[in-house]
């Protein structure tokens, strides 16, 4: 065991862990951060979109040296069937602002940079060190961690669990439940490398402008899921994710889905001729508000994906991770400055502060959405996209059929597929969940 004691140990150097370690170190606490990957970011997978506001709260001048890919000026939503997509497209020059709001990033690079800031702030950062279990005293209080290094037990007043979606440490120590298959999605992602000019031409971009496409529809074979395409400087990140429970049920393979997505006539031309470099798979917590586990206890708090803090509807995760990491650190700092012990009661301050933030408020707002989409997945991800696509085709194809006739046929096809009550029911439920 290591003699030296720390004020706090942060497990994981993802978005949440880095935010927590940075904040703790900035406040002058003695912090040890442990990461199993070769470096911060080496194992992390994300689309990825970075939300500037939450990062500004941690590193106000991050734009000066952070490895950012493109700032987003455009967002596209596609509803896809097998041969077509119906799209919504929002682009505004307002996004070409001095301090852009959203960026695409490559996590491996971004996290490395983020980690260097954590080091600079004074935290001790150890990579290639896996925390194998929490060290607990006779009363079950968390007093530190055990690692896979020789003589690798280290103690601290509080442990911040930022270990990502699996949440193994917490479950192993019986502090919380294991995430359920219908609360996590499995996403697979590839990086397609293309010359910069090609990307800019294909996505209609100039300079560092960027765009993202979010896609849903029959590509997920009736499962609850979404595809995405993000333009980076010299590569396109592309992927698709579906609920683990759906994969189990349907026997579809993630890679099969991805292949189909890539060969879709709307997607294939965007990545034609590219060189694929990375293939990765990662879980995303999608259970929303109802899946949030216990967030604090005797000597521990949990943040980020490990706490299931993820807004699946808006594809936000890293911002919730950063914010929860920061808030946990601030709560710990407050307890510490009062010279109070890191008891469950004192650490409940974290939960209180989190409840007041956008993190919990947003998740509450959509609390019924995951369930709705899950139960109705056939309709939302198979039937509607096909119907909408057919309707659009009928609308734009000029073939001598009278327009009223066309409208009637379209409407009939909707009703036939879903029945009036079904249609209204879906619309109502959707609106309720969104509200």
């Amino acid at each position: 065991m290591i003699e030296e004691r720390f004020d706090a140990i942060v497990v994981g150097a993802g978005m949440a862990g880095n935010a927590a370690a940075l904040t703790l170190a900035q406040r002058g606490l003695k912090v040890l951060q442990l990461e199993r990957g070769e470096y911060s970011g080496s194992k992390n997978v994300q689309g990825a979109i970075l939300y500037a506001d939450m990062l500004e709260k941690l590193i106000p001048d991050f734009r000066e040296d952070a490895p950012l890919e493109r700032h987003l000026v455009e967002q596209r939503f596609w509803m896809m069937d097998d041969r077509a997509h119906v799209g919504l497209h929002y682009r505004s020059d307002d996004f070409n602002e001095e301090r852009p709001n959203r960026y695409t990033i490559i996590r491996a690079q971004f996290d490395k940079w983020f980690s260097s800031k954590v080091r600079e702030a004074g935290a001790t950062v150890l990579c290639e060190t896996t925390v194998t279990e929490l060290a607990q005293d006779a009363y079950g209080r968390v007093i530190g961690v055990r690692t896979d290094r020789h003589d690798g037990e280290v103690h601290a007043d509080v442990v911040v669990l930022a270990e990502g979606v699996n949440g193994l440490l917490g479950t192993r120590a019986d502090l919380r439940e294991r995430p359920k298959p219908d609360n996590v999605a499995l996403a697979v992602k590839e990086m397609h490398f293309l010359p910069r000019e090609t990307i800019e031409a294909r996505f209609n971009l100039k300079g560092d402008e960027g765009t993202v496409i979010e896609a849903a529809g029959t590509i997920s074979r009736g499962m609850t899921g979404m595809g995405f395409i993000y333009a980076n400087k010299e590569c396109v990140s592309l992927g698709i994710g579906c609920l683990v429970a759906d994969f189990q049920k349907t026997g579809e393979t993630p890679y099969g889905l991805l292949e189909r997505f890539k060969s879709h006539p709307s997607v294939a031309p965007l990545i034609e001729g590219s060189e694929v470099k990375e293939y990765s798979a990662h879980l995303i917590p999608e259970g929303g508000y109802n899946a949030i586990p216990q967030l604090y206890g005797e000597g521990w708090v949990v943040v980020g994906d490990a706490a299931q803090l993820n807004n699946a509807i808006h594809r936000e995760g890293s911002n919730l991770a950063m914010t929860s990491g920061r808030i946990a650190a601030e709560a710990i700092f407050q307890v510490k400055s009062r010279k109070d012990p890191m008891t469950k009661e004192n650490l409940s301050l974290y939960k209180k502060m989190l409840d007041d933030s956008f993190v919990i408020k947003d998740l509450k707002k959509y609390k019924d959405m995951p369930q709705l989409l899950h139960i109705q997945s056939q309709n939302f991800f198979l039937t509607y996209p096909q119907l909408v696509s057919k309707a659009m085709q009928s609308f734009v194809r000029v073939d001598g059929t009278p327009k009223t006739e066309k409208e009637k046929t379209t409407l009939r096809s909707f009703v036939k597929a879903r029945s009036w009550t079904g249609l209204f029911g879906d619309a109502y439920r959707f609106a309720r969940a969104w509200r």
Partner: protein
Amino acid sequence: MHIVVCIKQVPDSAQIRVHPVTNTIMRQGVPTIINPYDLFALEAALELRDKFGGEVTVLTMGPPSAEDSLRKALTFGADRAVLLTDRFFAGADTLATTYALATAIRKIGDTYGAPDIIFTGKQTIDGDTAQVGPGIAKRLDLLQLTYVARIGALDLDARTIEAERRSEGGVQILRTRLPCLITMLEATNEIRRGAMKDALRAARATIVKWSAQDAGVEDIAKCGLRGSPTIVKKVFAPPPRAEKAALIDFGSRSPAEALIEDIFKRQPKLEAELVTLARGF
């Protein structure tokens, strides 16, 4: 005993891609690693230190980011790390590299005690020349043992060392005098996993950083691009084969028969040769 180990930070060549249009290396996102061959040298050095006492200094010449590799070497248990970094070193070929490294090793000797052994890896995976080790030895007028598979008796009083050196067709058992330079063969040991205390020490260690001037470089013209007699004139992608493999369509035939037919059709003389070659039936 003082041992210096030269390590190099290299791009992980398994992950390098070439820009399809411009034929340049796309470095974006390509992770860097310690040259895998150097880990065998480092482990050999650490084992000697553990047995005979003393210190291991790791040395690298590279960009400021090479600090990561040095820190990692400290995690494995090295005692000290020196980063030789200066824009004057950029673009060095093996001759210029050995000049800079030899100069730095002299300075390390002056500062921390004369080294008894200098270790390098057999070769790097980016430069891939296996020449830097022998070059350093020559510059420092040291005896060199290359392709060493095992280090045998080391006598610090008599200042002799024995080693098994791989040569073509066998193993030479050599004895030479200290100080000497050893290039370590791959797969001769396995790098240890540093203990928690080493990892903690490494995370907080200050890496010694030397510019050309700090290291005592007298003639900047012998460094980097200027000090390199070799010049890379052209870089190009390996010419792709004009056609892809002809795929055997075995139809109703057995695939094995179909394949053999095809092989002998393409290489008519081969069958007779194979009959002579083949021994067992």
